[in-house]
């Protein structure tokens, strides 16, 4: 893996009136990494990534993507990133192919809508409308749209929240496939097993501050070395494994 830096965030602060949602965050992300922002609800994850995406403006501090200053050359940044928002929707009475093609025009790129939809496993849904899709399908469409401009960096804000275990695992596979194409991914989540499964490095963030940044493995080792003992005896399987074993790993939608 190369270690060329593609994202740099320095002393980032965001206030909503008097409330400080992001309180002086610094981190950098290398090309090709899956970088996780972990934290409980309200920690400031969405605020941070949406500043990087150029949708919100910071109160102070700087964010650079591929060397471009996000708040100064927002449009340029938007052209090289792909975005999946935590809260967003698409035009309800357009077919998936029409939606993808429309976003293709927004980025002035020639695209094959069907192959992009195929990539996220929506090949059976070309002609259906956005509205009746299941939650997992909507998330995958959202990722397909984010891939339209062949972005260098992909932002995924809680892509698996609200999905059932099968759909979550399916999403993990999809994210790994996208990483294997060499894209850098910024992923926010509050599921620790998801971070452990996917992320090369994670930043744990709470009340607007980064508490620590490292690889998931190092963080676990560090904790164990400090003398920590888990509450439970380590089992070979957990309830989710039971659930998946009984109900199968195949996606349940349609």
């Amino acid at each position, binding site marked *: 893996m190369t270690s060329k830096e593609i994202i740099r965030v320095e002393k980032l602060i965001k206030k909503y009136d008097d409330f400080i949602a992001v309180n002086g965050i610094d981190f950098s992300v290398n090309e090709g990494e899956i970088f996780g922002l972990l934290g409980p609800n309200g920690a400031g994850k969405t605020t941070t990534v949406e500043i990087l995406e150029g*949708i919100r403006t910071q109160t102070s501090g700087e964010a650079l993507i591929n060397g471009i200053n996000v708040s100064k050359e927002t449009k340029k940044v938007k052209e090289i990133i792909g975005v999946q*928002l935590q809260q*967003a*929707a698409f*035009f309800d009475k357009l077919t998936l192919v*029409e939606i993808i093609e*429309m976003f293709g025009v*927004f*980025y002035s790129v020639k695209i094959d809508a069907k192959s992009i939809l195929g990539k996220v496993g929506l090949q059976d849904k070309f002609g259906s409308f956005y509205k009746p899709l299941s939650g997992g399908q909507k998330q995958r469409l959202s990722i397909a749209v984010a891939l339209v401009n062949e972005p260098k960096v992909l932002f995924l804000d809680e892509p698996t929240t609200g999905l059932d275990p099968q759909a979550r695992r399916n999403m993990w596979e999809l994210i790994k496939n996208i990483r294997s194409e060499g894209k850098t991914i910024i992923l926010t989540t509050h599921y620790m097993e998801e971070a452990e499964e996917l992320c090369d490095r994670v930043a744990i963030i709470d009340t607007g501050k980064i508490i620590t940044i490292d690889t998931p493995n190092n963080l676990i080792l560090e904790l164990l070395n400090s003398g920590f003992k888990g509450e439970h005896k380590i089992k070979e399987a957990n309830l989710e494994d039971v659930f998946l074993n009984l109900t199968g790993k195949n996606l349940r939608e349609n």
Partner: protein
Amino acid sequence: MKISLIIAIATMKMYFRRSQSLFWSLFFPVVLMIGLGFYGFGEFSPSKLGIIDGAKNQYSKELIKAISEKKYIEIEINTREKFDKKVLEGKIDSVLVIPDNYNHNNEVKIILEFEESKEIISHSFEDTINSVIETIDSENVNNNTQKLSSKIQNNSNQGYKGFLVPGIVSLAIMQSGILGVVFTLISYKTQGVLRRLQATPISSAHFLIGQLASRLVIITIQTILLFIIGILVLNINIGQGSILAWVNILIFSLLGSILFLIIGLAISGASPNEDYAAPIANLITFPMMFLSGVFFENDVLPYWIKIIGQNLPLSPLVTGMRESSLYGTNTLELLPEVGVIILWIIVCFIIGIKTFKWE
């Protein structure tokens, strides 16, 4: 350009895919048009005789006074121009023309003009006027100087229907312009569609222009369909058969659409959700529905309300539409209305820009 175009096409596709949307944009206007038009609401005014006093001398005044003393005739003295319009609207049943040289010394010819459909009432006018003339002549030394002749014209009057249809069409432009945009944009806003667009490199102007363009097309279709329904069902005729009238109608339809679409954009831009947008939209549209002369001439309103009504954005649109479709007035004469609409467009555009929020 290409971006606005694809947004416009997509918006139109979505509009026509919601099978109800075209139906509702036509349903209420058509019900109003047919209901009020057939019922002939407004046509029950007493029979009215128009008088053009060409002579304006003591003799003509004496004649008019004598006619007006007949209780069952209501008269109005006015110019040829005004009566041409009033006859079209069915507000005047026939017109008595007193010639310039009217006096009691020479032989003069007075003419009663009326349209075929007003023949019965006009014959009773004729009898009354004849008896008045006889009385005047008998008191006079030179007997039998006055002759009343009648001139029957082809039907052009459309009655209330002809007055109503352009009013309803204008009302429909306002409703579709404001409500259509408000409901779409507010739902995009609350669902997060606008946020998602913000994450792309397109500018908000692209998106708004696309919205505007698609709705201009939709409202133009609506205007044409409503007039066609008026022609087929209510038998109105447009601009006395002049093609120019259709051009005028399209000009006013486009200007009116732009105006109300911008008002709609301003409302949806300023409101965070439908709890704000719906009352504001109603507050703006409701007074115009009744004060801008859609259903009746706003002369009947109390003075101050009338002045307010005349200055609302819908009023110049109603006037322009009505002048074009009913009288076939040419575009140049309607420039004041065009000007007022453009002024409103500029005002609303500035307010809209200042208050627009994407979230």
